[in-house]
């Protein structure tokens, strides 16, 4: 380490006084300039010009380049994105933005899909059907897949329209459900419409979803439910034989059987000949309250628990107000109303060995669809066998699908004409069926109303149409599905 030699010289008295004075009265001095002299005042405009000139040049350049000025900062607004509606196999049924919605398949499932239009006060775009019920999901840009089978839908629509034209029906509906799952395979209405042209419709009455919302008096297709309920409650044995007269007076009304039959009938033959008298005799084993309660258990008089599709609950009048002829009418499916969807769901109880499975139209909802046991499985199978016997041995031979067993029941119900204030005989012709009867795959319900053909009955109108639908449906199945392997 180098040593530094320092010589210390003591301060003089004057020097000491000057240093102490400086401490007592410090003077403030401006900091010395760091860069150089300040900008002279006369140079400041020139400096400002230098700063502003590039801005002016840039603006000139933008205008010269065709850039619009001033351009307010804004996000380009795209048309509102709307999800597509797809059939079960991915076929696009509805697509496009809310402002320009298109339905590529035209009339296919139009009643079910409904349509969308311009923005509504609540911010929605869907105006009818699934477009309305699924509006929030579709507006979020999500696609929705339905359970519909487009081939079966096309078959149902075509055959319904053909039967309606052939027999002069004013309207009609078809619902096909898949046994076990409750998937709605097809839902057709007549007359139909093209949703692409909905804005030009003059008659808006055709756009309603008839299979789900139109109420009809079902008629004789209700008879199997009374038999099933009696069997379940052990108030009837399947092998019982009843004395059945050709007509019966109940209250102020006389009920007659349309088909001539033997005086003694087995239960299955009461269904085969669709005996009103036999059924009314059986119905006497229930009180009105019990009968109404059973109809509720089968799903009538309450909404079907189907997600995203509006449906009607139907009417079962309060049983305490029934007079005897009301009870008798209810047993044969009159004085009450139901939708085609309700009937199909109720027939699925026979197909599902006694289990009620709520139908579903949106594929994602099928797994979580509610189900409940309504009948003993043995009772459901017995009724199914009776219905198969009915198709096999009655005038319903036209409902038989070649090569496949069918369990079913027809109905020819009187229709109340609101305008005339009177009933029209056989105003609603219906058929409800299950095929194959042994291992059900499909439940179908069909009806036509206000048939103008003279003497038309369900056996000659809806039974052959049901067969046409069933045959074409079976033609789509592969061998394994056909044989139930």
């Amino acid at each position, binding site marked *: 380490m180098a040593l530094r030699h320092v010589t210390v010289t003591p301060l003089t008295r004057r020097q000491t006084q000057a240093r102490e004075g400086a401490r007592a009265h410090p003077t403030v001095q401006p900091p010395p300039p*760091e*860069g*150089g002299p300040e*900008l002279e005042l006369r*140079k400041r405009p020139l*400096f400002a010009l*230098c*700063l502003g000139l*590039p*801005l002016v040049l*840039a603006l000139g*350049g*933008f205008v010269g*380049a065709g*850039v*619009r000025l001033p*351009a307010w900062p804004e996000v*380009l607004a*795209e*048309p509102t994105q709307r999800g597509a509606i797809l059939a079960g196999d991915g*076929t*696009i049924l509805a*697509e*496009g*933005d809310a402002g*320009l919605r*298109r*339905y*590529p*398949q*035209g*009339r*296919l499932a139009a009643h079910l899909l409904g349509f969308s239009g311009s923005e509504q006060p609540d911010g929605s775009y869907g105006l009818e059907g699934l477009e309305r019920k699924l509006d929030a999901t579709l507006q979020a840009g999500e696609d929705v897949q339905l359970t519909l089978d*487009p*081939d079966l*839908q*096309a*078959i149902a*629509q*075509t055959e319904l329209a053909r039967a309606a034209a052939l027999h002069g029906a004013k309207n009609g509906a078809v619902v096909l459900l898949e046994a076990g799952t409750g998937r709605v395979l097809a839902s057709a209405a007549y007359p139909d419409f093209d949703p*692409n042209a909905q804005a030009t419709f003059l008659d808006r009455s055709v756009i309603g979803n008839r299979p789900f919302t139109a109420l009809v008096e079902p008629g004789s297709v209700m008879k199997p439910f009374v038999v099933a309920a009696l069997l379940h409650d052990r108030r009837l044995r399947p092998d019982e034989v009843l004395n059945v007269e050709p007509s019966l007076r109940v209250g102020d009304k006389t009920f007659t059987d349309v088909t001539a039959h033997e005086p003694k009938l087995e239960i299955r033959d009461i269904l085969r000949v669709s005996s009103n008298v036999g059924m009314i005799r059986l119905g006497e084993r229930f009180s009105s309250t019990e009968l109404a309660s059973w109809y509720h258990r089968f799903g009538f008089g309450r909404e079907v628990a189907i997600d995203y599709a509006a449906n009607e609950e139907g009417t079962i009048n309060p049983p305490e107000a029934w007079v005897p002829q009301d009870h008798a009418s209810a047993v044969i499916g009159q004085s009450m109303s139901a939708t085609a969807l309700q009937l199909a769901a109720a027939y699925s109880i026979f197909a599902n060995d006694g289990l009620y499975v709520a139908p579903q139209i949106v594929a994602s909802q099928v797994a979580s669809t509610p189900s409940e046991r309504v009948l003993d499985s043995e009772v459901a199978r017995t009724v199914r066998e009776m219905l198969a016997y009915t198709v096999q041995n009655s005038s319903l031979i036209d409902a038989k*699908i*070649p*090569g*496949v067993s069918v369990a079913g029941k027809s109905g020819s119900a009187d229709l109340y004409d609101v305008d005339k204030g009177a009933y029209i005989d056989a105003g609603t012709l219906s058929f409800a069926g299950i095929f194959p009867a042994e291992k059900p795959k499909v439940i179908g319900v069909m009806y036509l109303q206000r048939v103008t053909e003279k003497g038309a009955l369900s056996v000659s109108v809806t039974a052959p149409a049901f067969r*046409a639908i069933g*045959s*074409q449906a*079976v*033609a789509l199945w*592969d*061998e394994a599905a056909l044989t139930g392997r």
Partner: protein
Amino acid sequence: MTRISQRLLALYLASLLALAALGAHNQLRRGHHEAVLGQKYLLQTQLSALRQEVAGVTGVLAIRSWAVERGMVAAPEALNVGEVDAVPAPRTPLPQGALEVDTLWR
């Protein structure tokens, strides 16, 4: 003008020019975006219209209607079912493999 002022001025001018260039680029991109969106809308409209046209020819309703007009009968309703080929194809036992394709003509 001090040295620091000169530097700041240069930085200001450079930033201004960069901002101007970015703004111009943004404006041009916006115009392009607008054009592309218009094109997308046009193409979507065309696609939907074409899908509708295609459905009029190959859609399930169109095919069914075409076939029925030409006498199509559902397989279960056919009265006579026969081999289409003059001589039935020889039936040779296939080796059991992991994948089997079984074609059934109806």
